[in-house]
């Protein structure tokens, strides 16, 4: 009897700890939200200026018609592969260490894909004509062109936004019910609606488990298809340096790479910000570090294969793009290789590095700097150095593009800060489930914790 009482108490304590981020906002939180909001506002001003004056305020030109907006688009779509992929794979493989990081990763997917979806809109010459992309019956009998990879892209991104939002929401249902039970007044009403009458009966749990497994299995092919299609925006063209069969898997791996690195960064920040050290342990870092190592190896292998075949074939027009990249953007090329391969692979081989917070923070941020650079090197040099030498050029972003890029990061941060304030940032029910499966045994003088496998 007393034992049960104790465990109930600890459940309450655990809930309180995991929901600590939802308590009254601190001054720090308000300052952070205001600062992020200000940067977003500045970016909106820059975009407004672009809408009024035309795309000339950006650095794009002939021949480099695509610039920072498309780079950002690919980058943010890549980041969005973090969450859903990580959480779906970990759910399906029953990795028990996944539990505390699920929510953070899934939320990250939804927000990064939202930011990503803004960029094609910003990038358009006439953003206000966006509805031309939508297949709706009209008097002109005009339909969008389904042969265009850009249209596939829109379909894929929309599918992914809907799918990953549902995935996030489904996983949150039991936790929203927990929040509902702790709130009063208007907040209780809102969370009651969001929790959709979740009561935690055996039947509800059975359906919930079935649904989340199904969603996890379904979201993986969607995630793979999304980045394949993003890569086909490039690979389907005749542009030397873009027209490559390896692009789809290369992009998918690149996306997972930057996505996992972003999850690591985020976990480290969340852990510090909300004192969740108890739930997000060095053990999690260790495991994520191993995953990151594998993906880094894969990315490096793809890049090597791509460069090797081009170099060996030495087709002038293809190789010229590589030599041009080396000449004009040598520094960026070095940054990419150092960030994605030279530091990451050797460093992550060491357990001490994988378990150290600062080291992992450095590596994960460096990977994403490398991946942003990689996207720059994919988009810009092939365009700048195409078939007709008379039309060779260069590209550098202007303050407008840089402001909008900064606003994208701030906007993502803002969405996340708001989310962690109003929604349970740790998957409470999953953690409890993990706790229930864990038992402690005394072996001589040591206590060893064991995990019961789910059938």
């Amino acid at each position, binding site marked *: 009897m007393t034992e049960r009482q104790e465990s109930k108490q600890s459940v309450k304590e655990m809930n309180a700890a995991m929901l600590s981020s939802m308590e009254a906002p601190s001054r720090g939180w308000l300052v952070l939200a205001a600062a992020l909001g200000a940067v977003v506002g500045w970016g909106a001003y820059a975009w407004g200026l672009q809408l009024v004056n035309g795309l000339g305020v950006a650095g794009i030109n002939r021949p480099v018609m695509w610039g920072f907006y498309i780079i950002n688009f690919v980058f943010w779509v890549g980041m969005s592969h973090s969450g859903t992929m990580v959480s779906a794979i970990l759910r399906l493989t029953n990795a028990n260490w996944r539990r505390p990081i699920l929510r953070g990763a899934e939320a990250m997917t939804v927000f990064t894909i939202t930011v990503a979806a803004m960029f094609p809109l910003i990038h358009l010459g006439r953003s206000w004509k966006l509805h031309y992309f939508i297949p709706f019956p009209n008097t002109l009998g005009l339909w969008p062109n389904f042969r265009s990879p*850009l249209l596939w892209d829109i379909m894929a991104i929309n599918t992914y936004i809907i799918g990953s939002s549902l995935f996030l929401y489904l996983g949150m249902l039991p936790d929203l019910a927990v929040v509902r039970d702790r709130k009063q007044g208007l907040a209780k009403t809102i969370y009651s609606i969001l929790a959709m009458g979740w009561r935690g009966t055996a039947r509800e749990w059975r359906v919930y488990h079935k649904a989340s497994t199904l969603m996890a299995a379904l979201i993986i092919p969607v995630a793979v298809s999304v980045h394949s299609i993003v890569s086909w925006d490039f690979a389907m063209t005749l542009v030397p340096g873009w027209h490559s069969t390896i692009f789809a898997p290369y992009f998918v791996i690149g996306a997972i790479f930057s996505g996992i690195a972003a999850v690591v960064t985020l976990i480290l920040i969340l852990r510090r910000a909300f004192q969740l050290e108890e739930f997000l342990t060095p053990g999690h870092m260790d495991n994520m570090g191993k995953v990151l190592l594998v993906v880094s190896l894969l990315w490096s292998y793809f890049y090597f294969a791509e460069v090797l075949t081009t170099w060996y074939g030495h087709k002038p027009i293809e190789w010229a793009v590589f030599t041009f990249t080396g000449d004009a953007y040598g520094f960026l090329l070095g940054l990419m290789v150092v960030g994605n391969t030279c530091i990451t692979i050797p460093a992550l081989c060491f357990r001490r590095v994988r378990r150290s917070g600062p080291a992992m923070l450095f590596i994960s941020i460096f990977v994403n700097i490398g991946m942003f650079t990689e996207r720059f090197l994919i988009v810009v040099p092939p365009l700048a150095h195409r078939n007709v030498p008379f039309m060779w050029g260069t590209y550098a972003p202007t303050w407008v593009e840089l402001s909008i890029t900064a606003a994208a990061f701030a906007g993502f941060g803002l969405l996340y800060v708001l989310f962690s304030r109003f929604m349970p940032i740790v998957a409470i029910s999953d953690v409890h489930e993990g706790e229930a499966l864990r038992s402690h045994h005394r072996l001589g003088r040591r206590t060893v914790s064991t995990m019961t496998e789910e059938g």
Partner: protein
Amino acid sequence: MNQAESDNAAYHWGMVIDLDRCTGCGACVVACQAENNVPTVGETLCSQGREMQWIRIERYWEGQYPEVRARFIPLLCQHCDNAPCEPVCPVYASYHTSEGLNGQVYNRCVGTRYCANNCPFSARVFNFFEPEWPEPLNNQLSPDLTVRSKGVMEKCTFCIQRIRRGKEDAKLEGRPVRDEDIVPACAQTCAPGAIVFGNMADPESRAFRLARSKRRFRLLEDLGTEPSVIYLKGGGREDD
């Protein structure tokens, strides 16, 4: 429209450019700019790669001093039969006409600039800003075609307004279009007569006959885009 249909069409517009005759004077560029309401953007924007010319004279230097030669290639939209710019446009702003033209619907264009990226000739130009004409150039805008707005892609149309007029006049007189009925602005201004426009579906047209020259070649032919512009190789003196 499929290949068989276009093979049977009465018109297939094409152009022959004799590089032996081209002096690189640039009259075609000016004529095109005046005819097609193409804005001038000024020195600064030009240096930033924002010039709007639908036809440009590419100049290449050959050899070492003192044996140096300048080569000129007037380059415009090649009106490819198998145009890479067309399938990538998500809204059908870039499309193929039944007469072999590579059409561009300005009002439909949303400005993804995908077509420009996929054009191996970099023939497409983009309205980075709202076009402006300084006095008195604004008074010479042609009423036969639209002035494009900012955010829209444009390119050489083979002077589609002149093709339309030529066809209408011929129809009124109840006869097929003759060679001299349609002359695009660039061909009309070309003093040495290097540019010849015509109906490639008509074996009697001058363009068709010139296109059978031994000197014929098409730009970037290995890409298989089937351009409608045929060049006649220049610099004959050294080669023959």
